[in-house]
């Protein structure tokens, strides 16, 4: 009898095919949505991790110990000496690349017009491992070291009606806590994947910014990229100890994970989404619960007959459970396959949120590329099968409790 049960259960699916199909579709839609959601989340996660490390903090960021404490006062004078730290960084065999930056808020003047902007003094030659400027250059060329030239985000250029060859004057605070204004020529227009950078950023050679801000050889940030599988925490501690012991300087050295609270929140959000996925599946399973209950009531006479012929309650439960299991199995499989294909397709063309994200200061790209993962897809499939099958257990148990005499009274 035990070996026959799966055959009977499978055959029963086709007794009311439309109803079984409805249940399978409900499970499929839920499973597909979860696969797409997880693909989108994985895409956001990878995108944010990449953006944060490339455009903002590197994998490890070194800056003056007090800079963050006084950040709101724009303490340009709290810099670090790159020349003395350089040797320590270069000696560390886990460091893949290093660059230096100076970030400075500025007021940008063009005739009578002015606009707030975020200035970045960068070393374009060492930036290639962090920001691939040539690939995001929309027009013009990169600024040359020693020249008063800048790159400008395309949205800022559009807003200020600026083009190649135009000159802008920037007014900002200096390292002597005074102010200075200087004029730079636009030689390139760039399009970053991050909307905020397009809307307010300007990029100039670091040597010019050091001069205009009176920083001498000081830089504000040293950003590092590590080799694959390098232990971030261990390198942070190593560098901290070495800089302190060899140079006697206390610096603020942290990994990008420590620095970016929003990324940590994304991780928390992912955990929350696992629970949401569970509720989503339970919601989808209500259809299968309903279907099973209807089947039980429909087949009451049949249940009575089977019981009278000696079928145990547990076998009856298994029969209906197996029917639900097969529907879940097929529905989930179809759902995750469609979800996987949808993610694969969207991962190729990208989801464009440029309009929706304009003006939003978040480190996620305007065009998101969902990621596909066989492991996640199989995981969601199993997750969907287990939850949906367990859901059918509730009505299936009811079949076991039906008395044959009572059941046979149903016409």
């Amino acid at each position: 009898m035990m070996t026959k049960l799966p055959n009977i259960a499978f055959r029963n699916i086709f007794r009311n095919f439309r109803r079984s199909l409805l249940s399978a579709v409900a499970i499929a839609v839920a499973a597909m949505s979860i696969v797409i959601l997880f693909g989108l989340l994985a895409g956001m996660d990878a995108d944010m991790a990449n953006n944060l490390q490339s455009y903002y903090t590197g994998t490890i960021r070194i800056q003056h110990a007090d800079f963050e404490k006084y950040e709101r006062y724009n303490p340009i004078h709290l810099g670090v000496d790159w020349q003395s730290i350089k040797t320590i960084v270069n000696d560390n065999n886990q460091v893949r690349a290093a660059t230096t930056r100076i970030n400075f808020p500025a007021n940008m003047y063009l005739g009578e017009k002015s606009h707030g902007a975020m200035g970045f003094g960068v070393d374009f030659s060492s930036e290639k491992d962090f920001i691939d400027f040539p690939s995001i250059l929309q027009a013009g060329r990169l600024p040359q070291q020693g020249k008063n030239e800048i790159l400008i985000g395309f949205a800022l250029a559009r807003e200020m009606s600026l083009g190649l060859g135009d000159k802008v004057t920037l007014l900002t605070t200096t390292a002597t806590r005074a102010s200075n204004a200087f004029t730079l020529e636009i030689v390139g227009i760039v399009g970053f994947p991050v909307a905020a950078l397009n809307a307010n950023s300007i990029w100039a050679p670091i040597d010019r910014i050091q001069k205009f801000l009176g920083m001498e050889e000081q830089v504000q940030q040293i950003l590092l990229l590590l080799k694959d599988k390098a232990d971030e925490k261990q390198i942070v501690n190593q560098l901290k100890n070495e800089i302190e012991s060899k140079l006697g300087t206390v610096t603020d050295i942290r990994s990008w994970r420590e620095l970016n609270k929003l990324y940590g929140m994304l991780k928390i959000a992912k955990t929350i989404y696992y629970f949401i996925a569970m509720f989503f599946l339970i919601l989808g399973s209500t259809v299968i619960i309903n279907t099973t209950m209807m089947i039980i009531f429909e087949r009451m006479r049949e249940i009575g007959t089977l019981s009278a012929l000696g079928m145990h309650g547990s076998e009856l439960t298994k029969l209906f459970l197996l029917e639900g299991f097969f529907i879940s199995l097929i529905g989930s499989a179809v759902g995750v396959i469609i979800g996987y294909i949808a993610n694969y397709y969207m991962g190729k063309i990208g989801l464009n949120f440029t309009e929706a994200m304009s003006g939003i200061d978040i480190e996620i790209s305007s065009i998101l590329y969902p990621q596909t993962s066989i492991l996640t897809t199989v995981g969601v499939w199993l997750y969907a099968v287990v939850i949906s099958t367990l859901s059918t257990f509730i009505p299936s148990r009811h079949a076991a409790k039906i008395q044959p005499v009572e059941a046979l009274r149903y016409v």
Partner: protein
Amino acid sequence: MYKKLPFLSMLLLLLPSLLFALTADEIIGEMDRLSTFETTYLTGSIQTTDRFGTKTSRFNSWSQGKKDSLIEFTSAAERGQKILRTEGSLYLFYPDAEQLIRMQGAALRQSMLGSDISYEDMTEEKTTLDNYEAKLEGEESFKNRDCYVLLLTAKSRSVAYPIQKIWVDKQTFLVWKAEYSTKQGRLLKEMEVLETFNVEDRVLPKQSKIEDKMKKNSFTLMTIDSFEANPQLDKRIFTLENLTW
């Protein structure tokens, strides 16, 4: 008749002061007149102390009448930077910039060289009554000097401080103390004269302490080292063309 005697005696006693009492507008007028010269040339320093330490900037300043003034910084960090106020507009010149920066509106309230003094404070026009309604609140002794206490309320929103409370010396018309507030009464800035000097029978502040109440643990001392009243000045000093030279 005898019953009215005390009242008449009081009236007689108070009559001179009632007849010669100055109105708020007259006090302000006199205050502006005594602090304005046909032309001036002075040198001085701005010493700012804040959470990061103390720094000093030195400057030369020229002024003409009530509305024109030019400041040129001479200390190493800001050498060559100039501020020109003329015809109601304020312009900044920086040697590294190819264009002049015109400051207007709220930007005038920005801190100058990171000090507690704003561009507006530094180049203030001596036309108080054009911008403020003055009300005499009473009299008080400040630093052993008899002072008028006046409340100035802005006539328009174009001024840096909507409310000013000032302590004006009854004899010299020097403003010993000033409190600058928002319309809602929130204290923005406080100024106090620490030292004075005399020029042509006028008393002027030699050293003033300015505290921006929006900043914590910060104050600025502005000191005048040398002062020349009514020197011969080239009128082109206060032109935009001269600024970029």
